[in-house]
C-alpha cells in the first residue's frame, strides 16, 4: 500500500493550502520496523512527513474525539466505520471531516512476521507491492503479505471505506468466505468450564496497561469505569478476577459498536488476542439484530435504541 503515500501527501497539501481543512491526520514512518507513528500536520509544507504502508494499524479515528477544527483524515474500511460510529454517537460532526478513503488490502501482523523468522530481530522492513522483505543481521526473507495479515484483516468484509470525500484508488474485494466467526464458534462449542479456562489463560499475561482500551476509538468515556473510584467498579491489582472483570466489561461496552479494526490487539504489548471477547459480541449482535457497526449514518446502534416492539419482553 506504499503507493498511497504520494497521493496522501498530494491531497493533504491541497486540502491544507486551499483551507478546506485546518489539520490533516495520517501517519509518519516509524523509527522501528513495522511500527508507524500517528501524525497531525497543519503546515502544507510538511506533507512530506506523511507516510502509508501496511503497518498503519492503529485506528486514526481515535484521534478525532472532541476536536473542534476541520480535519482531513486518512481512513481504511474499518477506520471509516469507526468514524461513522463517532458521528452517530456525536463525538465528531460529519461537516468537520474530509475523509480520504483508502481501499485497504490489509495490515501486516508484526507478531506473525517475527514468529516466522524465529523471533530473530528484524532491523529493516520493505514493502514491495503485495510482498514484503525483512532483513536482520544475518538473514533476509521475502514474504507474501497475504500470509501475514492481521487476523481481523484476513476476514475483513469491508476493506473499502463506507464514508469518504475522496477515494485513493480502485475498490478492492472484501472477504467472502462464510467462516468469519470460526474462531468464535470454536470457543462457543467449549463447555463453560473449558471456556473459562480458555479466557483465563488468554489473559493470564495481561499487565493492565489498558493499551487495548486506549487504542480503541470507542473508548472515549471521560472517565472509564476502571478509573472510577466512587463507586469503584473493579479492583486495580493484577488479581485474575479483576483483570477478567476489566476485559469483560470493556468488551460489553463495545458491543454493537466494535468494527473489528484490530487496533486493540495490535496495541497490546503482551500479544493477547483481546478481540476474542469483542468478536463474540459482534457475532451476537449480528445474530440478534442483523447489525454490523458503522455501516451507515442513518441507523442508531441497536443497544442505544428503545423500541416499543422490541422482541425482548423485559424491556417493553
Amino acid at each position, binding site marked *: 500500500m506504499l503507493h498511497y503515500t504520494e497521493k496522501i501527501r498530494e491531497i493533504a497539501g491541497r486540502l491544507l493550502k486551499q483551507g478546506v481543512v485546518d489539520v490533516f491526520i495520517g501517519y509518519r514512518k*516509524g*523509527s*522501528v520496523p513495522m*511500527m*508507524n*507513528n*500517528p*501524525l*497531525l500536520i497543519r503546515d502544507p509544507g510538511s506533507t512530506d512527513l506523511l507516510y502509508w504502508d501496511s503497518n498503519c494499524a*492503529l485506528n486514526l479515528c*481515535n*484521534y478525532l474525539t472532541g476536536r473542534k477544527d476541520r480535519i482531513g483524515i486518512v481512513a481504511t474500511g474499518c477506520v471509516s466505520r469507526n468514524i461513522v460510529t463517532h458521528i452517530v454517537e456525536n463525538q465528531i460532526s460529519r461537516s468537520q471531516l474530509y475523509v480520504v478513503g483508502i481501499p485497504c488490502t490489509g495490515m501486516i501482523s508484526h*507478531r506473525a512476521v*517475527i*514468529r516466522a523468522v524465529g*523471533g530473530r*530481530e528484524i*532491523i529493516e522492513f520493505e514493502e514491495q507491492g503485495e510482498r514484503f522483505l525483512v532483513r536482520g*543481521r544475518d538473514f533476509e526473507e521475502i514474504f507474501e503479505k497475504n500470509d501475514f495479515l492481521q487476523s481481523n484483516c484476513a476476514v475483513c468484509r469491508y476493506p473499502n471505506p463506507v464514508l469518504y470525500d475522496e477515494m485513493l484508488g480502485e475498490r478492492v474485494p472484501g472477504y467472502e468466505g462464510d467462516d468469519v466467526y470460526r474462531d468464535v464458534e470454536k470457543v462457543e462449542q467449549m463447555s463453560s468450564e473449558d471456556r473459562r479456562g480458555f479466557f483465563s489463560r488468554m489473559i493470564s*499475561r495481561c*499487565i*493492565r*496497561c*489498558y*493499551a487495548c*482500551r*486506549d*487504542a480503541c476509538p470507542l473508548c472515549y468515556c471521560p*472517565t472509564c469505569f476502571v*478509573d472510577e*473510584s466512587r463507586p469503584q467498579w473493579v*479492583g*486495580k*491489582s*493484577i*488479581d485474575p478476577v479483576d483483570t477478567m472483570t476489566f476485559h469483560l466489561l470493556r468488551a460489553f461496552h463495545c458491543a454493537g459498536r466494535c468494527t473489528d479494526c484490530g487496533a486493540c490487539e*495490535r*496495541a497490546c*504489548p*503482551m*500479544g493477547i488476542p483481546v478481540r476474542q471477547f469483542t468478536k463474540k459480541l459482534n457475532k451476537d449482535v449480528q445474530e440478534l439484530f442483523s447489525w454490523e457497526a458503522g455501516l451507515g449514518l442513518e441507523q442508531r446502534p441497536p443497544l442505544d435504541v428503545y423500541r416499543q416492539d422490541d422482541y425482548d419482553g423485559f424491556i417493553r
Partner: protein
Amino acid sequence: MTAYRVYSKEEWTSAVKALESHYQVFVPVKDGDFHLFGLLSEGKRPDFDFQNTHLSPKSIVYPQSERMFEYSLDGEDPDAHMLKEAPKDFSPRAIVGIRPCDALAFQRVRVNFDTPRYRDPWWVSRFESTTFVGLGCNAPEATCFCTSVGGGPFSEAGLDVLLYDLGDRFLAKVLTSKGDGLLKKALGGMEADGTLVRQAESLALKVTEAMPAVVPVDGLKDKSVLELFEAPFWEDVAFGCINCGTCTYLCPTCWCFDIQDEVLGKSGDRIRNWDSCMFPLFTLHGSGHNPRGGKVARVRQRFMHKLKYYLDKYNEGVQCSGCGRCVRSCPANIDIRQVAELMNSL
C-alpha cells in the same frame, strides 16, 4: 585479584539448578513469542539465547501488586481498624541472566526507594535479598542505547557476577562477595585462565564499539527546566500517544505506584499497585481538578521526569537505562531516543 570461573553451557545449566536449594532462582524463559523471567522452581527451562526479556525484571524486586497491610473492620475485633503488615517474602533470590541495562536500572531506581531520609522497607529488603547475575550482550538490539546513558552491553554496575557468553561456555566474573557466595553454591565450573579472560575482554570491546545508537543526553543538565517545559515540540511528540501504560510498565526505571484499599465483608487489604503518569487518574485531585488533564502534559511529564527532573535532582544520570523496551513496544511509536535528541538540542 578478580576471580573468574568458566562453565561449559551444560555445566552452567546444572550450576543454576543447584542454586535452587539456596535461592528463588529467576531465569529467562521462552514464553510464547517472548522471553520473560520465570521461576526455575516452577519447572521453567532457562534459555540464555535471547536479546532481552520482553518485560523487565523489575517486578522481582517491586511486584506490580503488593499487599502492604491487612485490617479488620469488625467492631467486635479488638484489633479493628489497625493496619497489620501483610506477610511478605524476603527470602534470598537470584536473577540469573539479567542484562546490564536492567541491573543499572535497579541502581537508578534505588535513589528513589532508598534515601537517607526515606526507605521503602519492602523494596529495600527485596533488593538486598537479591543477587544479580548479569549476562553481557553479544548482540545488542538496534533499539539498545545503554552506552548513551552510562551503561554498556558489558557494564558491571549493579551486578554481583557478570557472565560472558563465549560460544560453548560461560565465563563468570565475580564482582562482589555476594556474587562470590552465589558461585560457591553453584556446582561445577573451574577457575578460568588468562586466555579466556582476554577473549572475553576483546569480545566486550568489540560489541561496545559497535553499539547501534548514540542518543545525545549530554546537554540536558545545563538546559533550563522552564525552557524545556515550554518547548514547542511537545504537542507534536504527544499527538500519537494513546496514554496507555505500555512504556511505563515495561520500563525498568519507572517506579510510580498507587495505594488502594480493597475490602471484602469485614476484612480489607491495603494494596500497592504500579501506576503510570500516562493515566489521567494519576494526578486527579479529590476536588476533581487535574493538573495534568491532557495528554500533552502527561507525555511531557514522562520525558521531563526521565531526562531532566531526575537528572537535576540526583545528578546520577538520566532515569533511563537505554533498554529500548518503550521504543520497541509503544503502539504509537513514540521514541524516547528522538525525544532525547529534541530536548538535548533545544
